[in-house]
C-alpha cells in the first residue's frame, strides 16, 4: 500500500469490525455492568464471595427475562475486573470499565483501600458506583468539599457507626471496663474503626489500657501481644482482616492471653475458622447480616447461593447481591439508560427489600440507613447474638 490509511478509513474499518463482533450476539441488547473484586492479593476470600454473588444476581435477572426499558428487553452483561486488593489496580480497573468497556454502572471494589480511589474516578467520570462492603466514610464523601459524592453509593453501614456499636456492646453487654486495641495502622478501615471505638468507649466511661498497632504484612505480633498481656485488659478489640486475625489469635493463645477478642465485619469470612485453628471460639464480631435469622428474601438468596456454590454466603456475598439488586431496581425504574437518570433513580429508591435488611439512602447521601448485628463464633458457625444500633 502506498497510502497510509486515513483516520476516516480507520474509523469505517473499526465500525465494520464492531458490527461483525456484535454479529454473534443474536441481536440481543445488553446492559454492561462492571464488577471490581479482590480476586488475588490479601483477601481473595472476599473477592470470590463477591464475584459469586454478583454472578448469581445477574443469572437470576437474565433468566427472568432481563430488564426492559421502554418495552425493549435487555440482558445484563457482567464485566469482572480483579484489583489484586490494591489501590492502583482499582483505579486502573475503574478506568478500563468506564472508558474501554463503557459500562452503565460499577459494583465494587469491596475493601475501602480500593474503593476510595475507585470512587474518586467514578465520581469524576459521572458513572454510578456502588460499593458493597467499603465501610470507610471517605468512600462516599468528596475529599475536597467534604460533601457527599453524587455518583457513589454503598450497601453497608460505615466504620464510625461500627466502632460506636462495638464500643457500646463491649461496655454494656460484655461489662468490660478496660480494653486493649490492636489494629493495622496502614489500612484505612481498621484504623478508623479503632479510633472511633476508642473515642466512644472512653466517652462512655471505659478505659483504653493499650492501643497497639502493626503494619500490613506483619507476621509476628509477639511484642505487641506481650505489651497487651501486661496491661491486663478485660477485652481485646481487634478490627483486622480475617487473614491477620488467624495469626494474631493463635499467637495470643500461645502467649497465654485468655481474654475474649472482639472484631469488626472484616472477620466475617468462613475462612476465619480454618485460619485460626479454634482460637477464636466464643469471640464476637459485628456484621452486616446474620444468615441464621434470615428474612424470606434472605432465605431465598441463601438457598440459591448455597445450592450453586456449596457454602453459606458471607456478608460480602449478601452485600454484593444487594448492590446488584439495588442497581437492577434503579435501572428498572429509570426511563432511559443514561448514567445520570439511573443515578437519580437509585438515589430515590424507597425501602428496597434487600438480603441485609431494607435499604434506603439518606437524602443527599450515598450511605444507607441500617443496623448491625453482633455475631459469636461457636464451633465452625457464626451465631447471631443481637441487633445493634448505637
Amino acid at each position, binding site marked *: 500500500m502506498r497510502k497510509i490509511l486515513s483516520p476516516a478509513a480507520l474509523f469505517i474499518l473499526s465500525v465494520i469490525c464492531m458490527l461483525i463482533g456484535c454479529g454473534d450476539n443474536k441481536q440481543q441488547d445488553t446492559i454492561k455492568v462492571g464488577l471490581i473484586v479482590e480476586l488475588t492479593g490479601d483477601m481473595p476470600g472476599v473477592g470470590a464471595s463477591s464475584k459469586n454473588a454478583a454472578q448469581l444476581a445477574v443469572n437470576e435477572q437474565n433468566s427472568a427475562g432481563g430488564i426492559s426499558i421502554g418495552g425493549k428487553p435487555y440482558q445484563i452483561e457482567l464485566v469482572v475486573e480483579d484489583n489484586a486488593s490494591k489501590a492502583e489496580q482499582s483505579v486502573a480497573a475503574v478506568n478500563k470499565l468506564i472508558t474501554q468497556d463503557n459500562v452503565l454502572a460499577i459494583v465494587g471494589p469491596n475493601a475501602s483501600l480500593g474503593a476510595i480511589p475507585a470512587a474518586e474516578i467514578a465520581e469524576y467520570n459521572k458513572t454510578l458506583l456502588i460499593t458493597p462492603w467499603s465501610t470507610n466514610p471517605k468512600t462516599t464523601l468528596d475529599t475536597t468539599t467534604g460533601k457527599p459524592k453524587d455518583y457513589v453509593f454503598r450497601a453497608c453501614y460505615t466504620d464510625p457507626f461500627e466502632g460506636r456499636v462495638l464500643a457500646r456492646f463491649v461496655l454494656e453487654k460484655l461489662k468490660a471496663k478496660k480494653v486493649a486495641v490492636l489494629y493495622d495502622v496502614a489500612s484505612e478501615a481498621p484504623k478508623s474503626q479503632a479510633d472511633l471505638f476508642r473515642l466512644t468507649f472512653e466517652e462512655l466511661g471505659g478505659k483504653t489500657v493499650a492501643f497497639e498497632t502493626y503494619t500490613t504484612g506483619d507476621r*509476628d505480633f509477639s511484642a505487641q501481644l506481650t505489651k497487651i498481656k*501486661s496491661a491486663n485488659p478485660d477485652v481485646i478489640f481487634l478490627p483486622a482482616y480475617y487473614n491477620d486475625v488467624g495469626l494474631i489469635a493463635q499467637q495470643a493463645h500461645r502467649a497465654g492471653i485468655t481474654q475474649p477478642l472482639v472484631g469488626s465485619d472484616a472477620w466475617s469470612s468462613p475462612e476465619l475458622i480454618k485460619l485460626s485453628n479454634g482460637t477464636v471460639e466464643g469471640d464476637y464480631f459485628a456484621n452486616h447480616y446474620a444468615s441464621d435469622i434470615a428474612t424470606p428474601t434472605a432465605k431465598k438468596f441463601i438457598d440459591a447461593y448455597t445450592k450453586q456454590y456449596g457454602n453459606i454466603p458471607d456478608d460480602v456475598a449478601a452485600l454484593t447481591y444487594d448492590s446488584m439488586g439495588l442497581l437492577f431496581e434503579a435501572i428498572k425504574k429509570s426511563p432511559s439508560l443514561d448514567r445520570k437518570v439511573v443515578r437519580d433513580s437509585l438515589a430515590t429508591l424507597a425501602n428496597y427489600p434487600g438480603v441485609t435488611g431494607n435499604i434506603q439512602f439518606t437524602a443527599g447521601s450515598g450511605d444507607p440507613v441500617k443496623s448491625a448485628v453482633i455475631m459469636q463464633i461457636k464451633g465452625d458457625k457464626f451465631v447471631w447474638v443481637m441487633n445493634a444500633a448505637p
Partner: protein
Amino acid sequence: MSEGIVYWLQQALNAFQLGSIYALIALGYTMVYGILTMINFAHGDVFMIGAFFCFLLSSMLGLSFIPTLLLTMLGTALLGVIIERLAYKPLRQAPKVSAIITALGVGMFLENFTLALAPYPKQIPLLLENVTWDFYGIAISSIQIVIISLSLTLMFLLDYIVQRTSIGMAMRAISWDKTFVPLMGIPVDLIVSITFAIGAGLAGAAGTMYALAYPVIDPYMGVMVGWKAFICAVVGGIGNIRGAMIGAFILGTVEIMVVAFFPSTFKDFVAFSLLMLLIMIRPYGILGKPRIQKV
C-alpha cells in the same frame, strides 16, 4: 519476679524466636557468598517454597512434624542444587552482575510459579499440639521451645560440618582461593552443590518452623523475610557463618524491642537505621574481615 522483669524476659524470648528463624535463612546467603562471592537473591523464595512443601506434606499427605521437617529439608536441598546447576553454574565465569540478575529472576520465577498454583493464602494444620507453660509469669509455648532448640541444633551442626569435616575444609579452601584449589584435586562442582544443598536445606527448615509459628503462608512471604535475612548476613559479616547468626539475633532483638518501645510503624525504619549505622562503623560486618582484592 517483678512484673517489669517478667515483661522484658518475655520480650527477650520473643526476640530469640524471631532471631532463630532469621539465622537459619541468613546462613544460606552467607554460605553461598563465602564460596562463590555471589548473592543468591532467590534464597528468600527457596524459604517460601519450604513453607509450601511443609503445607503439601502436612495437609495433603497428613504427615506429622518430624517427617514433614525432614522431607521439606530434603526437598528444598534438592531444589537448591537444581537452581545452582541450571541457573548459576553456566554463569560462573560471567560478570557477577549477570549472576545476581539471574538470581532475582529465579526468585521471581519461584514466586509466580507458586502464585499460579496456589493464589490464596494457605493455612498449615497444627503440626504440633501447642502447650503454653506459665514460668513465673513468662508464657513459654512448646512451639517456641521447638523452634529455638531445633534452630540452635542445626546451627551447631553446620558449624561442626564447616569447621571439623573434610567437606567443610574443602568449602573453606574454595572460598579462600578458586584458582589453585581445584588443582589440588578438590571437586569444586560437587562442593558448590553441597553448599547449595545445605543452605537450601536450612531455608527449608526455616520455612517449616516459620509455618509452625505463623501458620498462614503465601507466595510473597519470602520476599521481606529474605531481605531481612540478607541484611543479617551482611551485618554479621557476609561470608562468615557465626557472623550471620549474630546478625540475625541482633535484628530479631531490635525488631521486637522497637515495637516494645515505639509504635509498630517505626519497626523497620528504626531497625534498618540502626543496622546502617552498624555497617558504617564496621563496613565488613561484625565478624567480617577486609578481603584484599587481587589484581
